[in-house]
C-alpha cells in the first residue's frame, strides 16, 4: 500500500468507527466504499442505491456475479437477509429518511457546511447520480475525503466554488488530518488524526473553524 492508499484506509477506518449497531448505511464511490472493510458488526446493513440492501464484501472469487454490483459498479457480495428492489423504491428509501447514515466523497465542503461533490465547471463529466438524493434524505451525512486535492489545495474552503449538491449541510467531515463536526452554524475541529497536528490542520484548511474544548485541553496539556 502506498502513502496515498494508506491515508484513504485510515480515513475509512475512522469512518467505520462512527457507525452504531443496527444502522442502515449508504456508502458512496471512492473512500466511502472502503469503509465496509472495517465494519465487523453484522447488525449494520449497507444500502446501495442501485437496489440492494445488504451489500457485503466479496469474500470468495467463486461468489463473483457480474449482475451483482454496488453503486460504483464494482462486484459485491450479499449479506444474510439481503434484499433487491427497483431504483424508485431505492430512492424512496433514501429521500424518505430510512437511511441512517450516508458516507460520501466530496470535492469541497465549506465553512457553512455546504457540500460540492457532483460537478466541476469546465470538465466534460456529466453526472450527478444519487448524490443530491442522499444529501436530501439521509439522517446523518458524513464526508470522507483527503484534506487537500491532488494539487495540495484545501478541500475545506470558505465558500464552495464548485456547484453545491444540496441545501442540506454536512454533519461530520473526516480527513487524513482531522475530524470536524458541523455544530451551531460552523465547523468544529474535534479530533486530530495520527501524525497530524493543529498547525498542519490550520495550514491546510481554508475554512474558519473552532476547536472543540476537549481537544484544546488535550493539545495544550501535551
Amino acid at each position, binding site marked *: 500500500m502506498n502513502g496515498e492508499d494508506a491515508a484513504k484506509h485510515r480515513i475509512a477506518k475512522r469512518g467505520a468507527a462512527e457507525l452504531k449497531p443496527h444502522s442502515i448505511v449508504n456508502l458512496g464511490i471512492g473512500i466511502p466504499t472502503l469503509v465496509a472493510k472495517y465494519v465487523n458488526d453484522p447488525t449494520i446493513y449497507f444500502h446501495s442505491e442501485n*437496489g440492494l440492501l445488504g451489500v457485503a464484501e466479496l469474500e470468495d472469487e467463486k461468489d463473483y456475479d*457480474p449482475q451483482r454490483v454496488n453503486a460504483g459498479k464494482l462486484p459485491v457480495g450479499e449479506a444474510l437477509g439481503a434484499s433487491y428492489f427497483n431504483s*424508485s423504491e431505492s430512492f424512496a428509501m433514501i429521500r424518505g429518511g430510512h437511511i441512517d447514515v450516508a458516507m460520501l466523497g466530496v470535492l469541497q465542503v465549506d465553512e457553512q457546511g455546504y457540500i460540492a461533490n457532483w460537478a466541476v465547471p469546465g470538465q466534460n*463529466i456529466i453526472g450527478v447520480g444519487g448524490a*443530491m*438524493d442522499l444529501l436530501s*434524505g439521509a439522517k446523518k451525512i458524513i464526508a470522507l475525503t483527503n484534506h487537500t486535492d491532488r494539487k495540495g489545495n484545501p478541500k475545506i474552503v470558505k465558500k464552495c466554488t464548485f456547484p453545491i*449538491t*444540496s*441545501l442540506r449541510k454536512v454533519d461530520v467531515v473526516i480527513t487524513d488530518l482531522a475530524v470536524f463536526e458541523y455544530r451551531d452554524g460552523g465547523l468544529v475541529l474535534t479530533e486530530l488524526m495520527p501524525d497530524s497536528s493543529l498547525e498542519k490542520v490550520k495550514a491546510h484548511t481554508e475554512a474558519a473553524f473552532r476547536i472543540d474544548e476537549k481537544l484544546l485541553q488535550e493539545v495544550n496539556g501535551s
Partner: protein
Amino acid sequence: MNKVMSPSVAIKKVKSGDTIMVGGFGLVGAPLTLIEELLKHDSYDLTVISNNLGEPGVGLGKLLRQGKIKKAIGSYFTSNREVGDYYLQGKIQIELLPQGTLAESIRAGGAGIGGYYTKTGAGTELAKGKETREIDGELFVLEKPLRANVALIKAHKADRLGNLVYYKTARNFNPIMATSADYCIAEVDEIVETGELNPEEIVTPHLYVDAIVLSAYTLTKEGVVPR
C-alpha cells in the same frame, strides 16, 4: 395473444423521433440484445431515457457513436466520457436529473401522476428554471413525469403471458420503465410456461409487457459476450 417474438421484429416498434427508455445501471440489467438490434435498425433522432449511455463504444455507447441519439435524459453520463465530448460539440442534448428524480419521474409516468414535489436538488443548479415551493418550512422542486413511446427492458425470466421476475441488481430501472411506455419490450434469459412462475414472486405483472424476446448476449467478467 403471442408476445414472444424475435428481437428484429420487436425493435420495429421504435420509429425515428421516438422517445425510448432503456433499462440498466451501466451494463448491469441493460437489454444488450435489444440494443444490438437497435444499432441495425433505421431509427434516428431518438430521445433516450436511461441512467447512463453505456460505456465508450459499449451498449448505448455504440448508439451514441452512430449519431442516432438526439437527446439523452439520465443521471450519470460520467461512465462514458464520450457523452461529454458529444455534448460540448453540440451533437447531443442532455437533460441531467438526480438519480432518484429520474426514477420517480419514470414511476410517476407509469402511474398517471402529473407531477410531484421533491426536496432533491432544491437550491442547486439542477433546479434552475423549475418551479419551487416551500412545504412545511422546506424547499421542494416540482418535477414532471417521464413517459416513452417504447421501453426496452431486461428481466431474468418471463412466462408466456409476460409476467416478469428479475435477477439481483440487474433489476434497477427495468420494472418502472415497463410501466411508463406505450409499448414495452422485455428481453429475458429464459421463457417459461404460464403458471410456472410463483404469483407471489412476480415483480412485473403481464399487463405492462407487450413483447418478449430471448436474450442473445450476456454480461460476464470478460464483458458482453454471446450466450
